[in-house]
């Protein structure tokens, strides 16, 4: 059985002498979102220190935890240099099946995406992803990960944040200009600083996860969802394949089920065999019982502390929106904080993180609430009325099958309404699709849209050669797109972006690959002016909790 890596404790400098200058950034929590943010910052030239109270990766041992990585996440990981390792280790899948009354009633094939750089989804246990991120961070000279460093208190000052830290060799006090709270759902930093998340709902629905290593069976690499499995007392089950021939099984528990009894080895084995058959030989890699709730902070920042990932918002796992959302948080904050710390942008740019990512969190919560209520109507008569009708008609009526909602899979956030977005192009605020613009040949390597982007802002001009006179900006790269395309790439861009690579339109792309502005109505001068404004703007907009539909 796989063993998690362990990392050594190293005496921090503050145990020898007090710090003279605050750290630029301290990340509290070496999990998925913390490691991703730290890696992004280090690669953007910011010195970053990660404090983690453990000495390994993963959550509660070998828990698979987040294990479905969306295309957008793979694009982000490619920018950070870890996508290849994840792609190599992970299990790709494009087919999901839903079973009602033990009969397959519908399946969906995530569209095969030859136009895109990455597959729709990849399945991999979270501890592997975290291990790859740690190893990437260890190669960054500007990054320091301090294992077995537990933050015990946090004090905010006007110019810095002070933290008390407990280690195996004593306590120390340190300080940082910015602290990123990436310490999970029960964030100690959040408790110390003060903001309480607003709970949208908390249900009595409980699940038991059983990760099994299968020794004698080969099943298709598909996601199967039983909505009401007879083998699980008429309740839902998920089955996903992950790396190492390990399968993730999520069993919905009955309301009166005893969690301790359900988690005993004999009970778990019986449960698995009831579902998969007596002839399956397997080891239990990990198990755990969980419930879910949906919550979000009113503001994802309190003075000099930012909240990222589960410390900022929680969603039920229907749709894989937790881990993928945390990584998009990191993607959103990293470049803004780096630009501010390096003197390229006003503090307002950093503050836009809260508005943009809170909107994204609301959308994730909205979608997850809908899915979780379909799976667990909790006695809500009107939902049960329609749910029963849908299940009855689903085997014979595609429209009903499409209305079965066991989780709408995570899509990239779109920052509509952000002060950083200019114009109303269909893709304004969206993540730029990573379309393959050139296939590999004997003469040239393959290329995709994201590979054309510079480290900061990029103006993609749909032309074969740039005009001679273009306004310049130190953080902006101008790129003539057509020169990088082959005919297949041009056709793919037409299909995916509805763009002709010689139509002269300009697309302004942010450092996190989101579209700031696009279209042929934007002049180069206006585009550069928008960029200047964005880096110095003093307006922020606030998403309101009132915008969250009450779907419970």
């Amino acid at each position, binding site marked *: 059985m796989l063993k998690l890596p362990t990392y050594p404790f190293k005496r921090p400098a503050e145990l020898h002498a007090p710090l003279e200058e605050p750290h630029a950034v301290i990340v509290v929590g070496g999990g998925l979102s913390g490691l991703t943010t730290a890696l992004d910052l280090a690669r953007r030239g910011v010195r970053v220190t990660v404090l983690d109270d453990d000495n390994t990766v993963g959550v509660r041992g070998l828990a698979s935890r987040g294990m479905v990585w969306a295309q957008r996440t793979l694009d982000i990981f490619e920018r950070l240099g870890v996508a290849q390792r994840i792609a190599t280790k992970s299990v790709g899948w494009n087919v999901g099946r839903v079973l009602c009354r033990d009969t397959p009633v519908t399946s969906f094939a995530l569209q095969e995406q030859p136009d895109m750089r990455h597959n729709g989804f990849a399945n991999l246990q979270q501890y592997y992803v975290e291990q790859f991120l740690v190893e990437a961070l260890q190669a960054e000279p500007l990054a320091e990960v301090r294992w077995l460093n537990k933050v015990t208190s946090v004090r905010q000052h006007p110019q810095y944040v002070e933290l008390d830290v407990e280690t195996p060799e004593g306590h120390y006090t340190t300080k940082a200009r910015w602290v990123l709270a990436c310490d999970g759902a029960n964030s100690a930093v959040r408790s110390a600083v003060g903001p309480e998340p607003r709970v949208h709902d908390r249900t009595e629905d409980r699940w038991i996860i059983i990760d099994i290593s299968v020794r004698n069976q080969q099943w298709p690499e598909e996601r199967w969802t039983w909505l009401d499995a007879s083998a699980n007392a008429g309740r839902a089950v998920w089955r996903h394949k992950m790396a190492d021939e390990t399968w993730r099984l999520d069993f919905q528990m009955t309301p009166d089920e005893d969690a301790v009894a359900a988690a005993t080895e004999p009970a778990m084995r019986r449960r698995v065999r009831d579902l998969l058959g007596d002839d399956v030989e397997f080891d239990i890699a990990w198990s755990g019982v969980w419930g879910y709730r949906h919550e979000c902070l009113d503001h994802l920042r309190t003075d000099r502390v930012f909240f990222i990932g589960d410390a900022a918002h929680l969603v039920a796992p229907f749709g894989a929106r937790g881990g993928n959302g945390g990584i998009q948080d990191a993607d959103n904050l990293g470049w803004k904080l780096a630009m501010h710390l390096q003197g390229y942008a006003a503090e307002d740019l950093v503050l836009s993180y809260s508005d943009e990512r809170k909107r994204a969190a609301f959308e994730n919560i909205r979608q997850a609430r*809908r899915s979780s209520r*379909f799976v667990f109507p909790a006695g*809500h*008569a*009107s*939902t049960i*009325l*329609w749910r029963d009708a849908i299940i*009855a*008609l689903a085997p*014979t*009526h595609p*429209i009903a099958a*499409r*209305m079965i*909602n066991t989780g*709408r899979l995570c899509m990239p956030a779109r920052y509509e309404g952000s002060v950083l977005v200019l114009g109303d192009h269909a893709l304004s605020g969206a993540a730029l699709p990573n379309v393959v613009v050139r296939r590999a040949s004997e003469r040239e390597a393959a290329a995709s849209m994201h590979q054309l982007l510079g480290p900061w802002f990029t103006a993609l001009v749909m032309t074969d050669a740039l005009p001679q006179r273009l306004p310049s900006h130190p953080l902006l790269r101008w790129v003539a797109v057509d020169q990088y395309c082959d005919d297949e790439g041009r056709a793919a861009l037409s299909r995916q972006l509805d763009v002709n690579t010689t139509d002269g339109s300009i697309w302004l792309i942010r450092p996190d690959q989101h579209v700031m502005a696009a279209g042929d109505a934007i002049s180069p001068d206006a585009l550069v002016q928008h960029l200047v404004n964005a880096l110095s703007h003093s307006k922020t907009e606030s998403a309101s909790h009132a915008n969250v*539909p009450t*779907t419970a």
Partner: protein
Amino acid sequence: MPMSQQQLDDLFESLVAFTDLPSVDAQNARLSKLVLLLIERVDDASEVRTAIEQAMKSESRELVLAIP
């Protein structure tokens, strides 16, 4: 043009809200009106009869007209 997944999900929310009433009688009254309005929009007796048959398909008994 086929409905998008988002449109279907939004419709489901509307339906749940539409029948979210304290009594079954009130629920039935709303559903009856909805069916009549959809019939008006479909404007095709044969299509509606087919839908009625399909809705009853899982039931063992057949539709019996009180006054043929």
